[in-house]
C-alpha cells in the first residue's frame, strides 16, 4: 500500500466535470500530509486531452485508460478497469460525488474490501486516518465518518472543496493502462436523450428558485425566475410544491427529496420555507427571499428579504442586475 492519492476524473464525452478539478485540489493537500503523489485516473475513449488539464489542476501522474471499449461510461466496466490496478493501491481514492463517481466508489469499495465515505464536505487527517464530515438527513445533521480499511475511498460533494487555479506549465508522468478485453459486457449504452440545458444545480454558484408563490401564473412565474437566473449566470431551482404541482420538472427540485445545494447566492422566490426545503439550501452563502407573506419562515434564514409580489420584484431585479453587470 502506497501513500499516493488517486483521483477519479469524471467527465462526459471528454468534458470534465468541475467537481473533478475540485477533487484534484483536495488531493494535493492530502498528498502533502500523506507524503505521496497525486495520481489522476482518466478512463474513456479519446480522452488523452484531459491528461494535460489534470496536470494543470495538480496531478503528478495520470493513469490513462483510453480505449474504444470505454467510450460510454458503464459502472461495472469502469470498475473492472480500476480493479485491475489492485496491485498498486493508493492510501486514498477520491471521487467527485457525481452519478458516475458514486457508482464507481460503491463498486470499488466492494472490490477492495474497503468502505466509502460518501458526499463529504470536509476532511481532517490524523496519523493517516481521514476523519470526514458529511451531511445526513439532507443536511439537518452532520456526521463524522472514518474508515479503517485501505484505500480510504471518499466521494467529495460538489463545491465543498475549492477548485485550484490551473497552471498550464505543470507537467507530469503519463502512464497508459492497458485494459483486458472487456469480456461480455452486461450492459450497452443505446443512446442519449433529453440533453439537459442550462446550468446544473450541483455546479451552480447562483440559484434562483421558485415555489408555490408563482401559482397565480406558473408559466410566467418560472419565466421570470429563469430570466433572473440567466442574468446572473445561475441555475433554476424549485420547491417541492412547485414540482409536485407540475410547474417545472423534477430535475429542478431543491430539498430533502430533491438536490441538496450550497451555492454562493440563493434567491428564493415565493418559497415559504418548509423544513424539507430549508434542509436542501441552508448552507448557501447568501440567501435572499422574496415573498408576499412577511411571516414566511424563509425570512429567518435570509440575509436579505423583500416582502412583495415576485411578479413585480423579479423583473425589476433582472433589469437592475442587467444594468449593473454590464457596466
Amino acid at each position, binding site marked *: 500500500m502506497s501513500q499516493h492519492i488517486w483521483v477519479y476524473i469524471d467527465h462526459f464525452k471528454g468534458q470534465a466535470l468541475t467537481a473533478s478539478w475540485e477533487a484534484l485540489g483536495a488531493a494535493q493537500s492530502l498528498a502533502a500530509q500523506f507524503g505521496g503523489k497525486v495520481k489522476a485516473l482518466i478512463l474513456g475513449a479519446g480522452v488523452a486531452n484531459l491528461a494535460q488539464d489534470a496536470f494543470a489542476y495538480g496531478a503528478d501522474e495520470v493513469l490513462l485508460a483510453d480505449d474504444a471499449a470505454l467510450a460510454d461510461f458503464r459502472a461495472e466496466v469502469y470498475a473492472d478497469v480500476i480493479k485491475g490496478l489492485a496491485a498498486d493501491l493508493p492510501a486514498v481514492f477520491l471521487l467527485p460525488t457525481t452519478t458516475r463517481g*458514486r457508482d464507481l466508489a460503491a463498486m470499488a469499495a466492494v472490490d477492495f474490501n474497503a468502505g466509502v465515505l*460518501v458526499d463529504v464536505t470536509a476532511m481532517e487527517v490524523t496519523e493517516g486516518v481521514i476523519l470526514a464530515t458529511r451531511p445526513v*438527513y439532507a443536511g*439537518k445533521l452532520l456526521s463524522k*465518518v472514518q474508515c*479503517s480499511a485501505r484505500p480510504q475511498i471518499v466521494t467529495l460533494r460538489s463545491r465543498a472543496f475549492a477548485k485550484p487555479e490551473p497552471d498550464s506549465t505543470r507537467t507530469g508522468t503519463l502512464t497508459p493502462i492497458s485494459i483486458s478485453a472487456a469480456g461480455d459486457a452486461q450492459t450497452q449504452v443505446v443512446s442519449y436523450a433529453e440533453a439537459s440545458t442550462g446550468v446544473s444545480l450541483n455546479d451552480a454558484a447562483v440559484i434562483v428558485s421558485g415555489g408555490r408563490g408563482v401559482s397565480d401564473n406558473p408559466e410566467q412565474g418560472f419565466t421570470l425566475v429563469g430570466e433572473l437566473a440567466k442574468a446572473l449566470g445561475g441555475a433554476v431551482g424549485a420547491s417541492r410544491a412547485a414540482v409536485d404541482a407540475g410547474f417545472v420538472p423534477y430535475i429542478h427540485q431543491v430539498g430533502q427529496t430533491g438536490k441538496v445545494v450550497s451555492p454562493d447566492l440563493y434567491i428564493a422566490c415565493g418559497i415559504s420555507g418548509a423544513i424539507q426545503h430549508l434542509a436542501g439550501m441552508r448552507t448557501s452563502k447568501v440567501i435572499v427571499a422574496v415573498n408576499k407573506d412577511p411571516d414566511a419562515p424563509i425570512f429567518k434564514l435570509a440575509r436579505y428579504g423583500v416582502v412583495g409580489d415576485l411578479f413585480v420584484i423579479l423583473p425589476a431585479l433582472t433589469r437592475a442586475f442587467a444594468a449593473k453587470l454590464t457596466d
Partner: protein
Amino acid sequence: MKIVVCVKQVPDTAAKVVVEDGKVTWGDAPLVINPWDEYAVEAALNLKEAHGGSVTVLSLGKEDEKEAIKHALAMGCDEAILISDPDLAGLDGVAAARVFAAAVEKIGAVDLVFYGKQAIDTDTGTAPAMLARVLGWPALTLVAEIGEFDGAGIRVQRAIEEGRQVVQSQLPAVISVVKDYGEPRYPSFMGIRKAARAQVPVWDLAQLGIERPASVVTWPEVMNPPEKSVTNEMITGSSPDEIAKKLADRILAEKVL
C-alpha cells in the same frame, strides 16, 4: 419473474431531526417508508402487472421495524422478509450489501432487485451499486423510465447530469429508481388490511448462512450543524425598481457574483 424490492424505514421528511445528548432524535415524528422507496415499489409493481411474477419486499432492521414493509405490502407487494439479527447493528454500506446479497441468493432465481435512489437518513445512495457488485450483476442506477422488457433483458432510461442515458441490460440486474419515474400509488383499503394481517418471516444470520460481514466505516459523532447567525435585512422602497436597485447593490457588495 421474481422481483425483490428493498425498503427502509426512516423518520418522516417533515420531522425536526436533532442531536440531543449525542443521540439522533426526531421527537414523536412518525416513521415511514423511505420516500424514494415508494417509487421503487411502484416500478416493481408495474413490471409485475405487465409481465407477471411476484414482488418480495426485503428490509433490514430491528424486529419491530416494519413500517416500510407494511407500506410496501399495502401498495400491493406479494410478500415480505425482514432481515434482523442483534449482530447486525451498525453495519456499513458494503457489509449491508453482503447481507442483502445473501438474502437475495436465499430467495433464489431473482431477476431484478429494486431500490429507491437513496435513503433520506444516511443519504449515501450507494446500496444499489454495492449490492450489484457483490452479486456480480449490472447496476442500473437512477432509472427514470423503464422501457422494453422481454424476460432476458431490460431497457431503461437513467437520469444523469447531462440528461438521459438509454441502457440495455442483461438480467438479473439491480435498479434504483428516481422520482421522474412517476407518482407511486396510494395503498388501497384492502391492501392496508392485508398488510396488517401479513406474517413477515424474520431471517437472522444463521438462516442466511453467513457470519456478520466485516464493517469498516464508523461514524464516531453525529452533530447538529453549526448555528448560522444571519443578520436579516429587509429591503424596502417606494417602488419595485428602487427595491430592486437597493437589493442588487447589497448582493453585489457581498461579492458572490
